C-alpha cells in the first residue's frame, strides 16, 4: 500500500506481511537478491508469462488501493510494449493521490519497506510481494531501472520523476536522474518498468486479469494497450465509489507464532498487559489477565522482551480464553447491485440470458479474521455451453487466475449438487457443465491463502460453508429462471394453439361440413385456463423505461390477487403511485399492487417507470403473485416466503383444478420396432 502523503510512516504495510518477516529473518545471512532468486516461485515469478502478469497486477492493485483510500474514482491505463524477444516495457498510469516526494524511492526501491503491523484492513495489496519486488525482478532480468513519476495534489506541489533500482546487497533504493517538473495532471502516479516475460492471451492473461478486475471494480475505468497496438477500454459502470476500508487492530485468534513475536517486539507499549489490551481488538483488561495467567507471563514485562516460548504459551492461552469475535463492520463488500452492474457491463458481449441476482452474505469470522462472501451467476446467451462452467474467483476485489483446483471456492462449487439447480454435473460432484459463469468474491482483512503465492484461498470450514450458502442462493435464482423459461415455452405453445391451430381447425371443419364457423371463446378459455401476465418494456427518452404488465384473465372465474416486484427505489417516479392498482412501496423498494375482480376474458394493466443509473438492474420478469393459486398464473412466480408482505388483504383462495387441467395428454406412441429393417413397413 502506498502512502497518500499525509500518512508519513506508511509504506507497503500489509503487503506480503508474513513473507516480510520470513525475509527479515533471513536478511542477515543472504542478500535480498539471492533470496529473491531462490524464492521466485513463492513470490509469483515462476514463469515468464506469469512474471509479466504479476508485475502488472502489483502496479494495478496498488493504484486501485491508493484511489480507494483517497476516495477517487480510479482511471487506470496499462500499456505493454514489446521491446525485443522477451523484453517488455510496462507502463501503469493512474489518477490516484500520488506519493510524497520523500517516500517515492522507498515505495519502489526497497523490498518490504515500512511494513507495519498494527492495523488490518481489507486491501488488495495483501496479495503478492509488492511493487518493489517487480522493480527488482525487472532490474535483475533486464538490467533496466524503473522510471517513476508522481505528484500529490496541492497548489505548491510539483511532480517528481526518477529512475530507481534496488541495491540488492543492502535492500536500499539507488536513485538517478531525479528531477522536479510541472505535470499537466493535478495528481497521479506513473510507473514504467522493463521486465523479461511472455505475453499470452487466454485464461491466465493480462487481458483476462484486467477484464475480471473491471467486473469487481465497476467504479474503475481501465484502459489497456496490448503489445500488438490494440486498445481495450473498460469504462466504469457506476459512479458509486466503494467506501474507504476501515482499519482494525488484529484479533488475537488470528495470531501465528512468528506474527506474534514480531508484533510484540515492535510494540510501543510498556508492558505485556497493555500490549494485549491496546494493540489487539476485542481484548479487555480481564481477558488480558486471563491470557497472561494461563501463559504464566508477568503482566508488567515489556512486550519487546517476550521469548519465543512465552509467545507460544500465549497463543495456547488465547485458544483457551473466550474472546468476542472480531468486528466485521470494517469490510466493504461490492454489494449485490454493483456485482450485477459489473457483470452486465463486462459480459455484455456474451449477451447472457440471465444474471442471477448476486448474493452478499453477512460477515463471518474465520481464524480471527472477519470475512464476507459474495457470489453471482451469469447464464445462457453466447456463453459456451460445452465444457465446464467458467469460475471467476476474487479475493479483496483482485482476480485469482492461478491454482483454481486448490482453492476453497472451487472446492465449495465442486461439492454442491448442481443438477438440482439445472446445470449438468457428472455424478453430482465436481465442476458443473453448461453455459454459465460463476463469480465468487471473498473479502477479508486477511484472506487466508494456501501458500505464499496467494493464488488459492485456504479451505477453512467457515469459508467453505459461506461460499456454499451464497452459491445456493444464487443457484436457486438460476433454477427459478430456468423454470420460468420452461413455463414460458409452455405458454407459447398454448398461444400457438389458440391463436393459430384452433382457428384453422374450426374454419377447415366448418368449410368441410358446410356449416357456420363455431365460436371458440369457451374452448380457448378451457385450453388456456390461466391468468396471463405479459410484461413489456418501453424506452422513454434516454434513461427512462416504462414497464407494462398486461394481465389477461383466461379462466372461467373472477380473479383478485396481489402483484409484487422489487424495484430500485431511487429510480421510481410518480407513474408508480398513479397506477390505480398500486398499494404500497416499502423501504427496500418492494412494490405491491392489487388486481381486483378481474372478469373472465378481460384484462387489466399495471405500469410504472424507472429512470437513472440503476433502472436497468430491474428485470421485467421478476414479478410475483400472491393470493392466487400460482399454478394458474403464467408470467409471474409465486411470492417467495421471505418476502415480508405488509398490508396483505387478499387471502389465498383454495382452488381445485379440474381434472382436465392436470391430466397431461397421453400421447399415442408407436413401437420402437421401427428401426432399420422395419422402416419400410409403411407402404
Amino acid at each position, binding site marked *: 500500500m502506498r502512502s497518500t502523503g499525509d500518512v508519513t510512516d506508511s509504506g507497503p504495510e500489509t503487503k506480503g506481511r508474513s513473507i516480510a518477516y520470513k525475509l527479515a529473518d533471513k536478511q542477515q545471512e543472504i542478500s535480498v537478491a539471492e533470496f529473491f532468486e531462490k524464492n521466485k516461485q513463492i513470490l509469483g515469478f515462476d514463469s515468464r508469462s506469469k512474471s509479466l502478469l504479476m508485475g502488472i497486477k502489483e502496479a494495478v492493485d496498488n493504484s486501485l488501493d491508493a484511489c480507494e483510500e483517497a476516495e477517487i474514482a480510479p482511471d487506470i491505463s496499462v500499456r505493454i510494449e514489446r521491446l525485443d524477444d522477451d523484453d517488455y516495457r510496462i507502463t501503469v498510469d493512474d489518477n490516484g493521490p500520488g506519493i510524497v516526494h520523500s517516500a517515492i524511492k522507498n515505495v519502489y526501491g526497497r523490498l518490504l519497506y515500512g511494513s507495519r503491523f498494527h492495523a488490518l484492513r481489507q486491501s488488495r495489496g495483501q496479495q503478492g510481494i509488492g511493487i518493489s519486488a517487480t522493480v527488482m525482478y525487472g532490474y535483475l532480468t533486464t538490467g533496466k531501472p524503473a522510471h517513476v513519476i508522481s505528484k500529490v495534489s496541492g497548489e505548491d506541489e510539483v511532480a517528481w520523476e526518477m529512475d530507481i533500482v534496488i541495491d540488492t546487497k543492502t535492500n536500499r533504493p539507488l536513485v538517478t536522474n531525479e528531477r522536479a517538473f510541472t505535470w499537466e495532471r493535478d495528481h497521479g502516479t506513473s510507473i514504467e518498468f522493463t521486465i523479461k516475460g511472455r505475453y499470452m492471451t487466454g485464461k491466465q492473461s493480462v487481458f483476462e486479469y484486467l477484464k475480471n478486475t473491471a467486473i469487481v471494480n465497476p467504479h474503475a475505468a481501465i484502459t489497456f494497450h496490448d503489445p500488438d497496438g490494440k486498445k481495450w477500454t473498460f469504462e466504469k459502470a457506476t459512479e458509486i465509489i466503494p467506501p474507504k476500508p476501515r482499519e482494525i487492530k488484529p484479533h488475537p485468534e488470528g495470531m501465528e507464532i512468528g506474527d506474534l513475536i514480531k508484533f510484540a517486539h515492535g510494540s510501543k507499549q510498556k508492558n505485556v498487559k497493555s500490549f494485549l489490551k491496546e494493540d489487539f481488538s476485542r481484548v479487555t483488561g480481564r481477558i488480558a489477565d486471563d491470557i497472561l495467567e494461563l501463559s504464566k507471563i508477568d503482566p508488567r514485562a515489556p512486550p519487546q522482551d517476550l521469548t519465543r516460548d512465552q509467545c507460544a504459551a500465549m497463543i495456547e492461552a488465547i485458544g483457551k480464553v473466550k474472546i468476542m469475535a472480531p468486528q466485521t463492520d470494517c469490510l466493504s463488500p461490492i454489494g449485490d447491485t454493483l456485482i450485477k452492474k459489473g457483470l452486465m457491463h463486462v459480459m455484455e458481449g456474451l449477451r447472457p440470458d440471465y444474471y442471477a441476482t448476486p448474493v452478499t452474505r453477512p460477515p463471518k469470522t474465520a481464524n480471527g479474521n472477519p470475512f464476507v462472501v459474495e457470489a453471482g451467476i451469469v447464464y445462457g446467451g453466447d456463453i459456451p455451453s460445452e465444457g465446464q462452467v467458467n469460475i471467476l474467483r476474487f479475493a479483496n476485489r483482485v482476480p485469482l487466475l492461478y491454482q483454481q483446483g486448490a482453492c476453497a471456492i472451487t472446492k465449495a462449487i465442486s461439492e454442491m449438487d448442481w443438477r438440482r439447480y439445472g446445470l449438468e454435473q457428472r455424478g453430482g460432484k465436481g465442476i458443473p457443465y453448461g453455459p454459465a459463469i460463476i463469480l465468487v468474491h471473498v473479502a477479508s482483512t486477511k484472506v487466508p491463502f494456501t501458500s505464499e503465492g496467494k493464488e488459492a484461498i485456504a479451505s477453512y470450514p467457515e469459508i467453505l460453508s459461506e461460499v456454499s450458502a451464497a452459491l445456493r442462493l444464487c443457484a436457486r435464482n438460476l433454477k427459478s429462471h430456468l423454470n420460468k423459461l420452461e413455463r414460458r415455452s409452455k405458454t407459447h405453445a398454448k398461444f400457438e394453439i389458440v391463436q393459430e391451430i*384452433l382457428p384453422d381447425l374450426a374454419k*377447415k*371443419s366448418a368449410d*368441410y361440413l358446410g356449416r357456420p364457423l363455431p365460436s371458440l371463446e369457451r374452448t380457448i378459455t378451457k385450453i388456456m385456463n390461466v391468468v396471463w401476465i405479459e410484461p413489456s418494456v418501453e424506452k422513454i427518452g434516454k434513461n427512462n423505461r416504462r414497464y407494462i404488465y398486461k394481465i389477461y384473465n383466461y379462466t372461467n372465474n373472477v380473479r383478485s390477487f396481489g402483484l409484487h416486484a422489487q424495484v430500485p427505489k431511487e429510480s421510481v417516479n410518480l407513474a408508480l403511485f398513479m397506477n390505480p392498482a398500486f398499494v404500497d412501496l416499502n423501504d427496500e423498494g418492494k412494490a405491491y399492487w392489487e388486481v381486483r375482480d378481474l372478469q373472465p376474458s378481460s384484462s387489466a394493466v399495471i405500469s410504472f417507470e424507472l429512470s437513472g443509473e440503476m433502472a436497468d438492474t430491474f428485470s421485467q420478469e421478476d414479478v410475483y403473485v400472491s393470493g392466487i393459486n400460482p399454478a394458474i398464473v403464467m408470467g409471474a412466480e409465486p411470492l417467495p416466503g421471505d418476502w415480508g408482505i405488509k398490508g396483505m388483504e387478499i387471502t389465498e383462495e383454495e382452488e381445485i383444478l379440474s381434472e382436465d387441467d392436470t391430466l397431461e*395428454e397421453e400421447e399415442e406412441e*408407436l*413401437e420402437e420396432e421401427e428401426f432399420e429393417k422395419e422402416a419400410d413397413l409403411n407402404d
Partner: protein
Amino acid sequence: MTEKQDYTIESLNGIVESLYDQMDNGNVPAMNISLRSKRNIEFDPKSSVWKYGDQKSVRTAKTVKGALMLLRTVYTADFIKGMLNANKSSTLREMYYISEGWNNAKFHSQDESNILAEDLEVITGCMREEFKLRPEEDGARIYGDLTLTELTRKGEKKKINCIEDVGDSGYGIPYNVGPEKIEFKDCNAKFVMAIETGGMFDRLVENGFPEKYDALLVHLKGQPTRSTRRFIKRVNEELRLPVTVFTDGDPWSFRIFASVAYGAIKTAHISDYLATPSAQFIGITPSDILNYDLPTDNLSEKDVGALNAELSDPRFKDEFWENEIQAMLGMKKKAEQQALAKYGLDFVTDTYLPEKLTDMGIL
C-alpha cells in the same frame, strides 16, 4: 359412387363432424384412437393373429402436437373426399407433398403423413386403398409353379406362370393384390418359402430348388410390404399351401417373421388381412448357428436392445422364441443366411433346407 365409397365418405364426415361439434359446444376438441404400441396388442383366438386391444389414447387440442394432428386429420379427410369425388388416387408421398399447401397442417415428414393415413384406417375401419392412397413401391417378387391372372392397367387379364413366363428375377407383385386384381388359376407348388435376402432368393433359383422341391419362393426384401404379406396370406388361405420363412439369424429377422406370421404392431388393425398364423420359421435360428457351426458376427448394443425388447413383446411369448432369444443373448452372436455358403454353394439347397423342411414335416 359405390356403396363402399359412400361408407368411406360417411366415416370421414363422422370424424370431422365430431371435432366440429366439440368446438361448437365449447369443448376442447379431442379424438380417441387405439393405442398403437406393443402394450396394446392382443391375441385374437378367432383369427389366430395379433390385433389392437381396448386401450385408447386421446389426441386433444391441448398440446401443439395433438392440435396439429387434429388439424391434419381434417385436411386429410378433405383431401381424400376430393379424390373419391374426382375418381383419382395418389401415392402416400404425393399426399405428403400436397400438404405443402396446408399451412399449419403441413406434414413435416413423410412418417407423419403415413402414420396419419394408418390412424384413419384404425378409426374408420376402412383400408388405405379405399382412401385412394397407395404406397410408393410394389411388393416383392415370387418364383415357383403358380399360374395367375393379373388385371393390368389396360384392363386386360394377363395370364402368367411364375416360372415359365418370368425371368430369373421372378414375378413382381403389384401393390394391390386383392381378388379383383389377381386371380389364382393353377398351382403345382407344394409350399411357400418366404426369403429375406435377394442373394438367397437368387441362390435357390439358380440351384433349381423351386423346381426340385415344388417350392413357391417369395422374396421379402427385408420387412415385407403390405401387398407381399397379403399375397402370402391369400396363397395360404386360397391354395392351402403351408408357409415357411427363411431369414438371417438376427433379432431384426425375428421381427420379419413375426410380421408375416403374427401381424405387425403398426398394422395390427388389419392383421386379419395380412398375417398368416400358420407360417413356420425355418431359420437361421440360434440353434442352427451352433448345430451347423456357422460363421458369426458379434451382437451390437442395438441388437441386444432389440432382443430384450422382443422378450417383452407379447408376440414372442412362447417357448420356442423365448429359448431362441435367450440362446442368442447367451452366445452374443448372429449369422446371415448366406453364412451357409461356408460349406459350398449347394449346401443350402442340398443339405440345410431339406433337413430343416423334413424336420418341419413339409417335405
